């Protein structure tokens, strides 16, 4: 091998070294959540979602209180049973009374726990779904400029992750009310039973509090790190699966395995650290329990000796000690859950507060089918950001039934013009009229019904071919759908797929070719049967056989409709009734093919370059052909 300089693949200079330009997996760093645990504004917004279920919430809080009280009562009853029934002077009748009251408490406990758990669980689920729906519904209304700027993945994490942490918060917050009552109850009961012994026993409680205060921040960091590395490892794995063909193609297996090993091993270590932090609390709690029990035995024993304490109280104390530390443990955890919930709540309200800039006027009229089907641009100025207009004073009229081709180099404003017909965006000044009505004066729903749109990239939904062609036109019959498919020439390939019209498209139709997807999106527009068709021709090269089919289908689609086509193919352009040439947001030429050729302007120059599509012409040649840019 010779010719131009040859470098061999380099390799590691020492074992274990990793290549400088390699990584596996990607990871969006989630913000660490150590924010405020209580934010009144967010809480108010969340409360709005809980409000409809407030009766159920009150009920479950009541149930939690009853449940906690029964839990507190059980050791007391056992202690009483011993003292009045079993020690000297005790009688079987007293014991019977104690056992009966025990039974009553147990039944109440059962009922309360049933009510509490089922109500809380269901309310939390309902609120979760309500929130998600509110966000989703809002996203249907927000302006497209917001959607253009926002990554789908980011929105999805709000629709899912944030909503889930709100659910966790709702479920645990009612329970933590119970925990607080339980903690308070235990303190009161112990001090009432015997003040000195109670005080001594309770002295272990602040120790645990202090320990947990010191333990919590590093433990939280460790748990967070474990969570992070886990999702990093999972992400790297998913990438390895999705990109496996390219990996094998470029022979990256060995390097990737090593890099993945690094991530997995790092994950192993953070998981072990997390485990250590979680488990270290076990002996601490156990030791404190042991200390409390020892105190009860020693001090309680000597109090019994003085005759100032009954034996049943000791038994009751022992029972309480077993439950002593649970509420502290869950209450400190609740704090982190609240922090997370506040952050999530804020993010959810952010989505809910995105303004929907395009709204129907209160007196908006319905655009009906008997409108004439004309489209008019009247001195339209439009831009995505202020001061940078994409369309500058564009005026033209498309007559009913006419087909107009929009032509121009990239960035000339063709796509923007098309979006305005459908009122995806609001014009800065001027007006767009459809059927003689300003698009701002009609309902968006009716505008959508009368203006069908075919986008450059055909977008299909997971679901059957039938459902994809019919889309939201519920009134369309199976016959109409098949007719549309036949008309655009999609019927044959649909019938060749096992299952025909009912076969399910996987992953947005990735099992179909681009040309086939294009034809399906044509059929969809045909079924929609709108008076006006706005179409962005695909630029990607489709094999010549399908290409022919698409050209024919286009003809069918435009029959009897007003058509605005962003045309890339010369065949389409030449066939149009009229051609509008756009450049830098201005309309510079208009007329049919022959007229424009006669004019010998930009269009004629580009056409004479003999490229099969305007988009194939390199930018520098466009610049040469264009007298304006050439002169500047």
């Amino acid at each position: 091998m010779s010719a131009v300089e040859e470098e061999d693949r380099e390799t590691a200079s020492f074992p274990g070294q990793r290549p400088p330009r390699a990584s596996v997996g990607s990871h969006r760093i989630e913000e660490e959540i150590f924010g405020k645990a209580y934010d009144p504004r967010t809480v108010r917004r969340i409360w709005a979602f809980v409000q409809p279920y407030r009766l159920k919430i009150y009920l479950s809080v009541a149930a939690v209180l009853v449940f906690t009280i029964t839990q507190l009562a059980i050791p007391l009853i056992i202690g009483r049973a011993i003292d009045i029934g079993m020690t000297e002077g005790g009688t079987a009748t007293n014991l019977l009374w104690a056992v009966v009251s025990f039974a009553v408490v147990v039944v109440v406990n059962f009922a309360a726990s049933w009510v509490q758990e089922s109500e809380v669980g269901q309310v939390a689920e309902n609120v979760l779904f309500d929130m998600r729906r509110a966000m989703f519904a809002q996203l249907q209304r927000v302006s497209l400029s917001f959607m253009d700027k926002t990554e789908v993945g980011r929105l999805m994490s709000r629709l899912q992750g944030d909503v889930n942490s709100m659910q966790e918060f709702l479920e645990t917050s009612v329970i933590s009310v119970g925990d607080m009552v339980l903690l308070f109850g235990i303190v009161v009961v112990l001090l009432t039973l015997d003040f000195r012994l109670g005080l001594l026993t309770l002295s272990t409680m602040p120790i645990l509090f202090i320990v947990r205060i010191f333990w919590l921040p590093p433990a939280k960091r460790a748990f967070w790190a474990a969570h992070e590395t886990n999702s990093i490892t999972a992400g790297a794995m998913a990438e390895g699966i999705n990109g496996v063909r390219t990996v094998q193609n470029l022979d990256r297996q060995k390097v990737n395995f090593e890099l993945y090993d690094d991530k997995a091993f790092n994950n192993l270590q953070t998981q072990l650290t997390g485990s250590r932090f979680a488990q270290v609390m076990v002996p601490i709690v156990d030791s404190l329990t042991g200390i409390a029990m020892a105190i009860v035995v020693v001090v309680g024993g000597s109090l019994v000796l003085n005759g100032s304490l009954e034996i049943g109280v000791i038994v009751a104390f022992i029972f309480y000690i077993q439950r002593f530390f649970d509420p502290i443990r869950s209450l400190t955890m609740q704090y982190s859950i609240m922090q997370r919930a506040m952050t999530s709540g804020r993010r959810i309200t952010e989505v809910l507060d995105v303004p929907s800039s395009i709204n129907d006027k209160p007196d908006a009229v319905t655009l009906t089918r008997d409108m004439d089907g004309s489209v008019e641009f009247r001195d339209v100025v439009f831009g995505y950001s202020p001061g940078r207009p994409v369309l500058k004073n564009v005026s033209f009229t498309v007559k009913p039934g006419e087909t107009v081709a929009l032509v121009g180099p990239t960035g000339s404003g063709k796509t923007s013009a098309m979006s305005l017909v459908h009122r995806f965006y609001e014009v800065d000044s001027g007006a767009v009229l459809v059927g003689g009505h300003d698009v701002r004066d009609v309902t968006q729903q009716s505008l959508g019904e009368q203006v069908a749109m075919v986008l450059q990239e055909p977008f299909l939904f997971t679901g059957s071919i039938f459902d994809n062609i019919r889309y939201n036109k519920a009134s369309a019959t199976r016959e109409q759908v098949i007719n549309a498919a036949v008309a655009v020439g999609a019927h044959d390939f649909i019938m060749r797929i096992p299952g025909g019209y009912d076969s399910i498209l996987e992953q947005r139709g990735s099992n179909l070719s681009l040309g086939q997807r294009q034809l399906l999106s044509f059929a969809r527009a045909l079924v929609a049967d709108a008076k006006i068709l706005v179409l962005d021709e695909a630029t990607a090269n489709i094999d010549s056989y399908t290409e022919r089919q698409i050209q024919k289908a286009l003809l069918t689609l435009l029959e009897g409709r007003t058509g605005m086509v962003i045309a890339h193919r010369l065949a389409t352009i030449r066939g149009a009734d009229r051609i509008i040439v756009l450049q830098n947001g201005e309309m510079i030429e208009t007329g049919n093919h022959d007229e424009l050729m006669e004019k010998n302007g930009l269009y004629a120059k580009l056409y004479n370059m003999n490229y099969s599509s305007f988009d194939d012409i390199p930018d520098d040649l466009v610049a040469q052909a264009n007298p304006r840019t050439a002169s500047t």
Partner: protein
Amino acid sequence: MTTDKAGRVHSRGDAQAHVAAAHAGKTHSPLKRITLYSLRHPWQAGLAIGATVVASVLQLLIPRLLGHAVDQAQGILSTGSEGAQQALFWSAMTLLGVSVARGFFTLVQNYYSESVGHHVGYELRLAFYDKVQRLSYSYHDKVHTGDLITIGLLDLDGLRMFFSTGFVRTILLSVLIGVGAFMLLTTDVLLGCLALSFVPFVAWRSSVAQLKLRGTWLVLQKKLSALTRVMEENLGGIRVVRAFSGQDFELAKFDAASKEALDLSHDRVHIRVRNTSMMTFSFFTAMGLVLWFGGNKVIAGEMSVGTLASFLTFMTILQMPVRQLGLMVNSFARAATCGERFYAFLDQPLAIADAPGVAELKVTDGTLRLEDVHFTYPGANHPTLDGVTFEARAGQTIGIVGAPGSGKSTLAHLIPRFYDVSSGRITIDGQDVSAVSLQSLRRSVAVVQQDSFLFTTTIENNIAYGDPWSKETKIEKAAESAQLHNYIMGLPAGYDTVVGERGVSLSGGQRQRLSIARSLVLKPAVMVFDDSTAAIDAGTEHRIRSAMRRYASDRVTLIISHRLSSLMHADVILFLDGGKIVERGTHEQLLANGGRYRALYDLQTRPSDDIEIGSAAQ
């Protein structure tokens, strides 16, 4: 990314050894296999098991000691002796000691059983990842990526956690319940029976509940992912939704999917609530019975208060573990089903792998030869390639054209051995591609694919994907040849711009140019363009071609395309139809022949003759 220190690689053990061990034991049941695999960490597993036994015995001692202390305290009342108080003090100290020890052993038990699980998880992940990378295209063709991800995440988790949630918990529960029952029953048969009466009921309910919950969980996951899909597709296709005014329609779709998931979530709450409430109730009922019968025994003088107290504390101690019986049963069920799927995946035979002691490919002249190559996809009735023969020498460009389904892309995939030929052979410099190592083969053959995967990393790393050691100059040169350099330099972060799923999105043409650059970095002996310029405009493609011509002198170039302008300059053009070469020659020869190629040429250069659009045509 910085490199690791050499030393660290060894501290984690030999990755390949972990992978090999995961493949061992194919004849065992999944449960036995995962248990044996977990026991590959004998020290940690041994510590976990030993600590479990000790901790549970210590835990059982606590009620005993408490009961004893209660009796001692009561004894003080009757005797009031100094000695009794002394004894009470020692009881308290023993109690404290046992509690601290129990805490310590529980720590050891929990930590080491989790640690075994984490190690097993780490090792199984490596084995899984390794396998994914080794399985050939034919496997990945038929298996959904989503299913693979499920195996690698959820099924692997089910297996990983079996040691702590299934195996160790079984030991814990056996000791607690077994020894506990023995202690209770030997003390008092009737009271022992009553105290334990809740155990079978709770064990049964919690097992049923857990299995039901698991069943509904699997369904719920499906419903939730359907809901996710509705949302994702809605947001991704928001323009279509708006174009067809489909907002209400989409909300209805969302509501339907959402309601299904919500109903199921409510069912799950019901299952959980019914069972927890009933379990608690049965536990307290048993406690009430112990209190009544035990109390009567105390009154009758047959039993001490301390013994009764120890029975009651026993019950509180047993309550939690018994409830966990359901989790244990669930862990077994989960590990069995997850294990079946996971190991079925791991045990897949590799369709394409190096034979032992395979030779390296040695490229000398760089001659590629296909001899009577036949290929039929698994399960297909008709051959996709039906006797293809041609030869290409270094410096030559071969164009391959044909209708969709004529076998063009398949041909491209056979050369780097993504699939094996059904019959015939493919050689490079006389060496059969199936007789050389895959690594050496794939380093010599680069296929630029139609839809190449972009990794979420910088542009630089993406271009250097095949050779991550390559220098900046080499990367830039490749990008220049692929006509991508200027675009990259126009980006604010230049070559450091992150692209891919979570980065800047590139257009179809830019992606294709990036994947061309990616292959150019490799300087392969054979370069195959598999319809990889479809989204690149003709002018740019022309410039790429002229830039590459400088390197092409020692390389075989195969161009597969349906756009004739992409390949009409080739030295030889092959026209494929039904897996056979039906025409062969230069552009001029084929045009002169007036055959299929000519017809296609006419179609592409005069596409509009018989088609007019718009009302003018009517």
